[in-house]
């Protein structure tokens, strides 16, 4: 027993010489460090005290921890210094590799010689490496301000137009600085625009969000780029060059008066993305009535004219009174110059079909939480009435399909299943954090709108983590909702109803509850494309795929790369107040750098 204690004592006394440190020089293809004499850097690094190995890698894409681990084992390394222009992206792979070799994954230190403002030079790179080898913090952003302030660009790119992106944009624009707000879908608003109420105050979500959306839309400092995606990012903090692909909406935003004639004549009907597929939209559409920008757009995937290359249809363009529709419009590549970037790409939900035992996709009245949000939303397909699906024949395809209709039958009992895909190593092992509270909100809405209906909440642990949340939970309990501790094992069909089977952990008995509707509080996960974006930006993701913050406690909105910030759920599951707070924090970081540059 005395051996480990003695060695722990030694390391506390500060003798890093006992560590075997390896220096990895990473050079991504086409990066600016092409101009740097890496061989010279490697030679100097090899002579640093404590350095046991120096390796140069030219990775294309992600690195494989297993492969790295075998290299680390061969060199018997227990600490690694990653020297690169922007090494943060590779940190996770090395941390995992170190952990695989049985060492502390924390012992990956970064020497980001691409950051700071003195350009690339051998001396600076080696100073950074030497500091990292000794484990001495050497903040790249510290030191004198930009050597050439003239090159600093005060404009900011915000990726993602949800509540986080809107909040950050408004904060930065309010100080008189330019913001490009890039959004993949046809409107800003994000997930929050889909919600009916917020917890625990039961405020109307739209009443909070839509004024912000309109403010962002009208602010002359904010340029909203919808249907747009970031293609490429080059440069460094203060002077990023960003290529954005702007998909053609095929409707001239300045000419469109949103009269809706085009949609009336459009023959194409498809499931609405905004309504999570429980309602339909036309091929030419506005995502929802309060969309910003409030302009019609065409989805080329569905448009008959686009798919037939101009041979068929074209009804919308013929009917448009202002000639706003240009069906042959092309996608556009835009180049932006910005000094800072805020990533706010939010989340997707787990595909509930993967949890086969809950029968989503098989039983019509098993819904996901976002579907229920749209169902209970006054602007949803049933005007906010909570009803079950009815079987109706599709006039075109003659096939029977289950649809929501405002006069559909009301459920007599609703089950809400927490942790559907969360806290489960078979799906996502993390807690999605907001599900407990929004599930309680759902229960409240069921009890409010259908006082006769029973409502069951099946939970593992009730995570009422925020201000007023515990009180909210108590309130819902008093409203007559059955809070059942126990996670259902299955949902099966039982005549016309659904049977929820599980163990009631409080009583230790098995339970079978007949209900008419099951709502699955599905897990949050990083939105599609987050990993590609991380690679383009050169910032790290954590093991679950969320963007990794620079420091969990003190810099939750900064990334491993100077000038790039993260806000909202893209950093990890969080509720609306935390998302908004983090967005404001990220905006503060951006403004700090703008003010520091002397541009304002």
């Amino acid at each position, binding site marked *: 027993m005395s051996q480990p204690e003695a060695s722990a004592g030694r390391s506390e006394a500060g003798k890093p010489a006992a560590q075997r440190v390896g220096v990895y020089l990473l050079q991504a293809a086409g990066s600016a460090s092409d101009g740097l004499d890496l061989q010279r850097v490697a030679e100097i690094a090899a002579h640093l005290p404590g350095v046991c190995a120096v390796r140069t890698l030219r990775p294309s894409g992600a690195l494989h921890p297993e492969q790295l681990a075998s290299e680390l084992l061969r060199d018997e390394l227990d600490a690694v210094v990653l020297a690169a222009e922007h090494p943060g992206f590779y940190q996770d792979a090395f941390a995992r590799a170190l952990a695989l070799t049985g060492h502390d994954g924390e012992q990956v230190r970064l020497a980001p010689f691409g950051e700071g403002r003195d350009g690339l030079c051998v001396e600076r790179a080696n100073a950074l490496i030497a500091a990292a080898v000794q484990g001495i913090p050497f903040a790249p952003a510290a030191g004198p301000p930009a050597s050439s302030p003239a090159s600093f660009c005060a404009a900011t790119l915000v990726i993602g137009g949800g509540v986080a992106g809107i909040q950050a944009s408004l904060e930065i624009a309010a100080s008189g600085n330019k913001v490009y707000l890039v959004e993949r879908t046809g409107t800003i608003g994000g997930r929050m625009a889909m919600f009916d109420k917020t917890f625990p105050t039961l405020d109307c979500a739209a009443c909070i969000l839509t004024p912000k959306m309109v403010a962002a839309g009208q602010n002359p400092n904010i340029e909203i780029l919808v249907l747009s995606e970031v293609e490429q990012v080059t440069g460094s903090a203060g002077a990023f060059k960003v290529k954005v692909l702007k998909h053609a909406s095929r409707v001239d935003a300045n000419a469109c008066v949103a009269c809706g004639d085009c949609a009336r004549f459009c023959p194409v009907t498809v499931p609405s993305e905004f309504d999570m597929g429980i309602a339909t939209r036309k091929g030419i559409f506005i995502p929802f009535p309060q969309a910003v920008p409030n302009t019609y757009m065409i989805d080329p995937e569905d448009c008959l004219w686009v798919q037939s290359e101009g041979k068929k249809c074209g009804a919308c363009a013929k009917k448009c009174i202002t000639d706003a529709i240009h069906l042959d419009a092309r996608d556009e590549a835009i180049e932006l110059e910005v000094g800072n970037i805020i990533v706010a790409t939010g989340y997707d939900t787990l595909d509930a079909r993967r949890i086969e035992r809950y029968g989503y996709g098989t039983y019509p009245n098993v819904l996901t939480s976002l579907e229920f949000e749209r169902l209970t939303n006054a602007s949803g397909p049933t005007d906010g009435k909570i009803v079950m699906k009815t079987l109706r024949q599709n006039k075109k395809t003659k096939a029977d399909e289950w649809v929501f209709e405002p006069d559909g039958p009301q459920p007599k009992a609703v089950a809400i299943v927490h942790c559907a895909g969360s*806290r489960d190593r078979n799906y996502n092992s993390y807690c999605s954090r907001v599900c407990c509270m929004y599930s309680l909100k759902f229960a409240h809405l069921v009890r409010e709108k259908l006082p006769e209906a029973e409502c069951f909440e099946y939970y593992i642990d009730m995570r009422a983590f925020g201000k007023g949340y515990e009180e909210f939970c108590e309130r819902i309990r008093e409203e007559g909702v059955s809070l059942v501790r126990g996670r259902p094992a299955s949902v099966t069909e039982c005549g016309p109803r659904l049977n929820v089977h599980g163990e009631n952990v409080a009583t230790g008995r098995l339970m079978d509850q007949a209900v008419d509707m099951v709502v699955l509080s599905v897990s949050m996960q990083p939105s599609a494309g987050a990993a590609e974006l991380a690679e383009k930006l050169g910032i790290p993701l954590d093991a679950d795929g969320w963007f990794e913050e620079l420091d969990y406690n003190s810099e939750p909105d900064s990334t491993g790369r100077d000038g790039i910030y993260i806000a909202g759920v893209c950093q990890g599951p969080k509720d609306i107040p935390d998302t908004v707070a983090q967005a404001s924090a990220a905006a503060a970081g951006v403004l700090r750098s703008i003010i520091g540059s002397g541009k304002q």
Partner: protein
Amino acid sequence: MAVRANPNLIDELEHYGARDASKCYQCGDCSATCRLSGDASVFPRKAMHYLQLGLEKPLRSTLDPWLCYYCGDCSERCPRGAEPGETMMGLRRWLTAQYDFTGISRFLYRSWASELAAILMLALVTGAGFLGFGYILGGGNLSVYDGAGAFLPAHDVHIFDWTMGITLALILSINCLRMWRFTMRGEQAAPVSPSQYVRHLQLLPLHFFTQKRFRDCENKRPWATHLVLMLSYLTMLVLIMFFLKEMQSGPKVNWYVHSFGYLASIGLVTVTILDLRGRVKKDEAYHRHSHESDWMFLILLLYVATTGIVQHVLHRAGLPMAANITYVAHLMGVVPMLLLEVPFSKWSHMAYRPLAMYFAALQQAAGKGS
């Protein structure tokens, strides 16, 4: 009523193979997934909970682990990787050690080196003993296998078999009595009248011979292989205890007796090889974790079955000396296997499992009556 908690219980169970029970967060998914878990007894979550709390006494008096046949569905589904199925398996080993009054079981389960040493020592003693017996009191001629003047006369081996059988049965009976005391006379147990004991008695042979409860699991294959193994083993036991003379006679094949032996041999070898293969490949949840005692049990069983077949073949092939040497080698496996496994380890569940089904039915009947 004060309840005594043993905070080291969960660590103690690690020696018996239940390594992940502390990961359980009590969602109840396992109990609801299990097809054998019912209103009479809802498991395995409750046992996981007792284990986390260190409630040794309620755990000792529970029948739940014996009601589980380990299909592995719960472990597959478990959101935490807490391996409820393997926990039940570990608890069965732990309970076997609890029931055993000699303490040998605990000793064997906790240290694989001790178990291995015990097997080897018993094998050596057996080998030396039978060789000595053969030369001094037996036929004395290693090249005579059967009939008058046989090296190991069937009659003498028979007496040895019965002596050992009765001893083992006695030890196992005492352990069964302890099981009854823990489970049926504990604080939680409902009182059961003697007439009820008689009324449900048919459950014992029913569960023993059919293992019908196992068939309720979704995957039927484990039930089939388990039943084949048990019936093969039982057939062999009957043949050896009652027909040893016929078994050892030859070299002509006595089809009335030997055909049973052939069937049982095929069953034993096939199932042990399948099981070993499964444990190596870890393709099913119930094969993912193997306690050292599982390996020793399977290897010993395969060894015994193979040497049994080989001695029979050598005898028919007219090689009595080789047959006799294999016979001794065979006994060097049989004696340690029976001495260690029947009262103290894996084979004891042949008694505990049907008893548990019987006791559980009695408890349910008594609980309903009150």
